[in-house]
């Protein structure tokens, strides 16, 4: 039962353009969402998060949007850079709990 889904296993974008990574969830109890980035042979690193009381959070080139009614969140990267090429995981937690449920990941490739 995949409660957090990333339906696009890969995405290719040109340098300078916008990258949009999508994530859907099924559990309405989730109230805190995070995005992680993972390079090969390294552990995931935290990128940005959003609480369910907000619908947008921005940090530099990265913006996360949350649509609670659609149970959908997205990560926008503008402008995309070659160093952004990595696997991106969305994750969710509920009730202020410790446990994160991760999606399956999207491999982003930013081409010159």
């Amino acid at each position, binding site marked *: 039962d995949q409660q957090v889904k990333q339906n696009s296993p890969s995405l290719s974008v040109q340098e300078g353009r916008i990258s949009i990574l999508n994530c859907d969830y099924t559990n309405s109890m989730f109230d805190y969402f995070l995005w992680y980035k993972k390079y090969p042979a390294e552990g995931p690193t*935290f990128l940005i998060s959003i609480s369910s009381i907000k619908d947008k959070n921005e940090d530099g080139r990265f913006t996360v949007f949350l649509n609670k009614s659609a149970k959908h969140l997205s990560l926008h990267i503008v402008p995309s850079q070659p160093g952004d090429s990595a696997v991106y995981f969305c*994750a969710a937690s509920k009730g202020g709990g*410790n446990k994160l*449920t991760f999606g*399956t990941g999207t491999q982003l490739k930013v081409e010159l």
Partner: protein
Amino acid sequence: DVKVTQSSRYLVKRTGEKVFLECVQDMDHENMFWYRQDPGLGLRLIYFSYDVKMKEKGDIPEGYSVSREKKERFSLILESASTNQTSMYLCASSKVVPDTQYFGPGTRLTVL
């Protein structure tokens, strides 16, 4: 700078062997986690611990056990390794909830 270290980057073991994976964090975090990452499945939580000597099962605890004798150290134990436990194992830690989890570099375990 936050630091989570894992005892080995690569490990090769034989079926039936007992395997210990060690994780140490230097951030005085209460919470520690063990995940495995497999292609197409994302990160799946095996066990987590919110305090010394405390543990809780995650989504896929079968075939694994854990030990947390000291706050900074969380061990994952494969009592009798099997080939389906070949995977990337990731340790993480966090302070309070909800909060960012910080990951180690991972251990690539191969069971022959």
